[in-house]
């Protein structure tokens, strides 16, 4: 009988090992191969571009808008002759705004043949892939991120950004508050990696400009109540408050609470809520009234107007407002096209990089009519001057007119 038992055990182990091996083989078979190259279309062999986005995490509210801008631009280019007659083919990978996932996903797209990467997820994700794209010698372009570190050394040889940076925005707000005569500022922020990294730029900048950050409160992006944090800010009696976050639900909650608890205190926000139209309806009535935010779309910019018309035609009633994300996505793709044409060989990473560095005084759809983007071997942060940003004030729950007190200049 004991022999029987032992026999079972042996087979049991053998069975286990066999199964482990079988599942393993499945894994190898399932992912070992590189997918077959896409068949050539009538207009030539496709140029593969990888997009690193966020479809589920805290950056999803704006990543989805940026993605829409990218797709609009690519479709427009493809129906108008492509790049040197070749169509662009996009592939998407979502990192859920978790920077630890980003390098692997970018690597996956490069291995599938991508010769250019566009990032639409959070700043932390773009920071995380700098080393990856440098090692692979494939250029990456952060369409909307504002973290100064993205375009700056070290490891920035293959990384590009175009938006006015956190440093620029901080400088603008510092000048604006000085003009308005504020001294004490209350700060409310979320605890995401992108926001915390950006605070490393904002806080020293504000302090050096002479402002007192009398309160700095944090809430997680899934917080259900911020009464305590806002009460603590209120207790310090600031001249103005500023909300630094990725936007989305938390910002709506904070703005609602600020509108209720600190009605008479001027409030400011970074770009996020001004550029997330789907969130405006969610604020309580007049919850956003008077809020000043850093806008990156100027309706009098002719290229913005053209883009708005195109998007109305393409998306009909699903398109109501041109956000900075879509405008910057459009710009990013147009700049990429220009770079590939400059470089002469869209299938080669280093050529694409060289092409990017030749882009000079590109007239954007985002920012004011006189705002441009330029790159060079030593300049991988494209913005030329501060006028990619305008300070706009909400009227009711919709963006209204530019803030009368102060506006940044292009010089």
């Amino acid at each position, binding site marked *: 009988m004991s022999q029987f038992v032992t026999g079972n055990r042996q087979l049991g182990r053998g069975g286990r090992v066999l199964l482990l091996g079988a599942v393993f083989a499945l894994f190898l078979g399932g992912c070992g191969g590189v997918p077959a190259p896409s068949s050539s279309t009538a207009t030539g062999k496709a140029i593969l571009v990888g997009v690193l986005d966020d479809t589920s995490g805290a950056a999803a*509210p704006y990543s989805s808008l940026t993605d829409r801008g990218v797709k609009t631009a690519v479709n427009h280019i493809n129906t108008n002759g492509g790049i040197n007659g070749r169509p662009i083919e996009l592939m998407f990978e979502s990192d859920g705004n978790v920077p630890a996932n980003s390098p692997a996903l970018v690597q996956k797209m490069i291995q599938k043949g991508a010769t250019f990467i566009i990032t639409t997820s959070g700043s932390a994700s773009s920071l995380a892939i700098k080393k990856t794209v440098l090692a692979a010698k494939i250029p990456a372009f952060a369409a909307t991120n504002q973290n100064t570190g993205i375009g700056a050394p070290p490891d920035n040889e293959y990384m590009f950004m175009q938006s006015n940076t956190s440093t620029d925005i901080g400088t603008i707000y510092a000048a604006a508050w000085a003009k308005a005569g504020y001294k004490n500022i209350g700060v409310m922020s979320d605890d995401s990696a992108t926001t915390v990294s950006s605070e490393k730029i904002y806080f020293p900048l504000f302090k050096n400009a002479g402002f007192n950050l009398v309160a700095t409160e944090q809430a997680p992006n899934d917080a259900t109540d911020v009464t305590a944090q806002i009460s*603590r800010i209120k207790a310090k009696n600031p001249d103005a408050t500023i909300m630094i976050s990725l936007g989305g639900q938390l910002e709506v909650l904070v703005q609602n609470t600020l509108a209720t608890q600190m009605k008479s205190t001027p409030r400011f926000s970074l770009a996020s809520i001004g550029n997330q139209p789907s969130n405006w309806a969610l604020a309580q009535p007049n919850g956003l009234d008077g809020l000043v935010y850093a806008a990156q779309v100027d309706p009098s910019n002719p290229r913005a107007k053209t883009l708005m018309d195109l998007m109305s035609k393409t998306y009909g009633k699903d398109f109501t407002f041109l956000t900075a994300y879509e405008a910057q996505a459009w710009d990013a793709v147009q700049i990429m096209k220009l770079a590939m044409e400059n470089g002469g060989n869209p299938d080669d990473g280093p050529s694409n990089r060289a092409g990017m560095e030749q882009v000079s005084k590109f007239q954007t759809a985002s920012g004011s009519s006189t705002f441009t983007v330029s790159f060079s071997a030593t300049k991988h942060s494209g913005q030329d001057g501060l006028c990619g940003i305008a300070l706009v004030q909400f009227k009711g729950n919709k963006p209204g007119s530019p803030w009368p007190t102060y506006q940044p200049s292009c010089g």
Partner: protein
Amino acid sequence: MIQIGCFFSLVGLGYYVVLNGAGFFNFAIGPYTMFSGLASSWLVFIQGWDLPQAILVGIAATIVLSVLTELLVVRPIERRSGGEELPALIAVVAVLYAIAQLAGTLFGRRPLPGRPWFYFENPIQVGLAYIDAQVIVSVVVTLLVFTALSLWLTFSPYGKIMRAVGDNQEAARTLGFPITRVRVIAFALAGLIAGIAGPLFASKAGVGFESGLSYSLFGFIALVLGGTGSPWAPLAGGMLLATIQIMSSYFFGSVWLNYATLAIAVVFFAIRPEGIFARRVRA
């Protein structure tokens, strides 16, 4: 703060009902609540439905989920493993996770806002609390639900049976009470309560597919704090928990919310697991 307290109380009440009717901690009740809230929000904001119909669909869906949990998961596992607590616990944790993923797949992974059931301008301030229309609605609905349940337990035939089962399941079975039916009713009731609580609370800060875990935890603590002695006990527990959370957040910083909740759990579970209102078993 009042609104949060009401919410925790309702979830705690859901636990109470299932505990009485089936002798089981239905940890999946947080996700039920989330599901109802997210479903109705999705219907209103993405599909353009009107609020009342969306809420009804949310409640119906949650009742179905709850009853299915009992029929497909809890009963078979309890039958198979006899008195052991662990398999049922793991199973209900798996249900918790599965419902969250189901909601994420059906409704998307981004949080959606809720919509207030009523609205008026200029909330009234009472200390740290700001009373707007939804707070009043929450209080009214909560009191209604608690009262209704209390009356049902006291006066309706199945309610009385459920109380008997809750006191002593073995004795009730020997006496020939319809245990299986009572269990299903208990789960359905919990689903109903959760279904109401979800949309009620969603307007405060929105709801996302991952919100269910915190709801489950906080509702459970509300139940334990309040005790199992009376159907009104979870109300006390929920209010107490919400107060402690907001106070610690206000005085020490927002991270203290989690520390304080952990501390309460450790202290109360170990020292006074029967809660404030202990059950007095009728001899």
